[in-house]
């Protein structure tokens, strides 16, 4: 029984279905991807609101927040917790893994749908449940969890310490449900990529975004277990009176930190790698060049994945673990900069001798690369144990990880949206608005976090409600004010994007099959692609980055077209 027939039958039963089954409880990976995108967008608005409240309080302490009202210390702790949790677990992962992974993997490997369409839908609805739980917890009388997104015990393990009872419990439940959702999703990604590739699509011919998504899924699958165990123990501590993390009952707070960061560090790469994948795709297409060093990038991605499992204790250098652990962990930590250096240098080398078209997508990819580098290099300060003694827990850390996550999640993500929007919705987005959006985002983002680097160097601790207690920080207050103004700007420049996104969906210029002249398989299909994706199973002849092949008339060569003999020899193959 061949793919097309199987999925064809599969699809027919769909087309007779009504609106609900087709758009709400659909099992079509493209629809599910859009659902993920919507979910993450809604949560992103919440996260942005939290950021606005936090920053306003930090700039003008104890003044009523416009459009909100008074904002007390307990609210502050609650909202930094929510901001972190939402942005990492309910925006970054659904956006980069859920939306892009779901949309791209089957299309790019030439499969008709995910391996397990129903499991796919289930994982999305599990995520919805998780988000709902989290949002509900924000409306509890005593407020949501307030122990930080890392939920360090014992603060999180005993309600007495924060005064939050069910807020924290619901936080644990929400996180657990989110994990369940992405476990299902990750298994789906892996099986699809391993088993459902089209003929000729060998592993080394897969687009890099697929590689990064899959590596991210593996990292998630293998790292999340200990934290699930930890979450169970934490929940028992809060509800059954056990004392896993409570010293007065013989527990050990550092155990939670170990369990959390064993997951928490790979999680960084779970988010960062897909962002890089998107940037790589865009870079290659708009510089009309093959990615420089495809194999090197693949291997460094895998190396990053493996290394990310042996660096977690660098979050705990000064947390009271055996100080002798610090040196090995700072070696591994700093070593992880090597694969990332390869990644960055390869991207730079891809620009060399290119013929670059500065579309909004390309601008976002380049902007992401440029900003990420700052996030990467500042990591060295924190990776070296001795300088971490001073930097740890300051705004320097805050800026560092925002510089790592924002470029990958938002620059990468926005770039991906501008790039694949035609394929997703069959219409083009407005380029001018897109460029306004990019420059606004780029400038304001840097204006938010560069000041905070210096605030951190000045010794400002993070997670402080306000700084008036410290004379030594008084002279740094202007930096906080600047950051807040920039954040307001950053939030405002998202409006053109939202308008552009929703307007183009109905009024945008109708997109043809391959508006960017790109190579990978999804561009060989109509926009938007039908379900089943491939009316005839595609056959793949070469890797997806054959741009500007010497001795060819046009400068791109789709994956499902064999390389002309003359060109192949000219390309030195």
């Amino acid at each position, binding site marked *: 029984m061949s793919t097309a027939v199987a999925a064809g039958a599969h699809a027919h039963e769909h087309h007779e279905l009504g609106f609900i089954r087709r758009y709400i409880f659909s099992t079509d990976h493209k629809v599910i991807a859009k659902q993920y995108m919507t979910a993450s967008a809604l949560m992103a608005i919440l996260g942005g609101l939290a950021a606005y409240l936090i920053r306003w309080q930090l700039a003008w302490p104890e003044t009523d927040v416009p459009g909100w009202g008074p904002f007390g210390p307990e609210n502050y702790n609650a909202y930094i917790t929510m901001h972190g949790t939402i942005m990492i677990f309910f925006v970054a992962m659904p956006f980069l893994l859920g939306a892009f992974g779901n949309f791209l993997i089957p299309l790019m490997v030439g499969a008709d749908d995910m391996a397990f*369409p129903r499991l796919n839908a289930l994982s999305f609805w599990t995520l919805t449940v998780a988000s709902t739980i989290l949002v509900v917890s924000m409306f509890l009388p005593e407020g949501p969890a307030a122990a930080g997104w890392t939920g360090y015990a014992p603060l999180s393990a005993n309600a007495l310490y924060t005064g939050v009872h069910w807020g924290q419990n619901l936080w644990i439940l929400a996180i657990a449900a989110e994990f369940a959702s992405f476990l299902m999703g990750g298994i789906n990604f892996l099986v699809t990529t391993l*088993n*459902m*590739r089209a*003929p000729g699509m060998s592993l080394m011919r897969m687009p890099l975004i697929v590689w990064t998504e899959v590596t991210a899924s593996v990292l998630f699958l293998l790292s999340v277990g200990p934290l699930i165990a930890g979450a169970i123990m934490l929940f*028992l501590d809060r509800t059954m009176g056990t004392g*896993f993390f409570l010293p007065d009952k013989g527990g*050990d707070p550092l155990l939670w930190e170990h369990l959390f960061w064993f997951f928490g560090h790979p999680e960084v790469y779970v988010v960062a790698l897909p962002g890089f994948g998107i940037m790589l795709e865009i870079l290659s297409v708009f510089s009309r060049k093959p990615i420089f060093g495809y194999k090197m990038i693949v291997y460094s991605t895998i190396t990053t994945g493996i290394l990310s499992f042996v660096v977690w204790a660098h979050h705990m250098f000064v947390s009271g673990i055996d100080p002798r652990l610090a040196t090995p962990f700072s070696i591994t930590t700093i070593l992880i900069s090597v694969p990332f250096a390869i990644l960055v240098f390869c991207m730079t080398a891809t620009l060399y001798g290119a013929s670059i078209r500065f579309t909004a997508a390309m601008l976002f990819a380049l902007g992401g690369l440029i900003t990420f580098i700052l996030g990467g290099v500042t990591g060295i300060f924190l990776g070296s144990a001795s300088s971490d003694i001073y930097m740890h827990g300051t705004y320097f850390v805050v800026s560092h990880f925002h510089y790592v996550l924002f470029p990958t999640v938002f620059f990468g993500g926005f770039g991906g949206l501008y790039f694949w929007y035609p394929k997703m919705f069959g219409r083009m987005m407005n380029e001018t608005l897109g460029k306004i959006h990019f420059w606004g985002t780029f400038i304001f983002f840097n204006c938010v976090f560069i000041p905070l680097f210096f605030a951190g160097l000045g010794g400002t601790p993070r997670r402080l409600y306000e700084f008036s207690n410290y004379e030594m920080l008084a002279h740094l207050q202007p930096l906080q004010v600047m950051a807040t103004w920039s954040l307001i700007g950053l939030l405002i420049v998202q409006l053109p994007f939202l308008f552009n996104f929703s307007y183009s969906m109905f009024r945008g210029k109708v997109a043809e099959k391959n508006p960017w002249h790109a190579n990978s398989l999804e561009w060989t299909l109509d926009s938007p692609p039908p379900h089943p994706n491939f009316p005839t199973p595609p056959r793949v002849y070469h890797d997806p980055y054959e741009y500007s092949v010497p001795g060819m008339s046009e400068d791109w060569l789709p994956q499902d077209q064999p390389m002309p003999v003359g060109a192949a020899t000219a390309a030195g193959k």
Partner: protein
Amino acid sequence: MSAAQASAGTTMAPEVVETDSLHQIPLGKVAIWWFLASEIMVFGGLITSYLLMMFAHGGFAEQAVHVKWKLGALNTLVLLTSSMTMILALASARKKDLEKTRMFLGITVLLGLTFLVIKIFFEYIPEIGEGFTPASGMFWSFYFGMTGLHGVHVFGGIVANFCLFVYTMRKVDWSLLERRVEYAGLYWHFVDVVWIFLFPLLYLT
């Protein structure tokens, strides 16, 4: 889920073998193994924490004398046997012998239930009666936490097997049944393996 695996499992295999040997493995099997891999990490996290606590401050052995290791041994016997019946169910499914498949699945379900009954009514309840609750000491926290999580897994396995048992009541699609029994079995044996380690950890310390 298993149905999804089944439908997908049949689709790709034949035509893509030419590309890549991985395609010979049915989708569902790869998925189940990945699922088990993450499960290994879950129980791994718990076991690691348990050992860490045990080394960090002893006193576990003194507590462990209160658990009913004879019943634990009996439960181990039950689970091991159920594992055998499960694999025999698969064997007879491969021989297209519906009667035996159904019988072995039924036995497996019954053995699973026996395990839970012994666990709950002959261990948990008397122990709590004797005043050993999850709140009474680190060892008991781990004892109830780990066996409880394992028990949940056992229950899940029982449900899955019972669904298969019911499925065998009707006219069956053999390849489908064979795959489902195999995947349910993989999970069931994994639960068994977990217990093989939990038993000495918790009862024989």
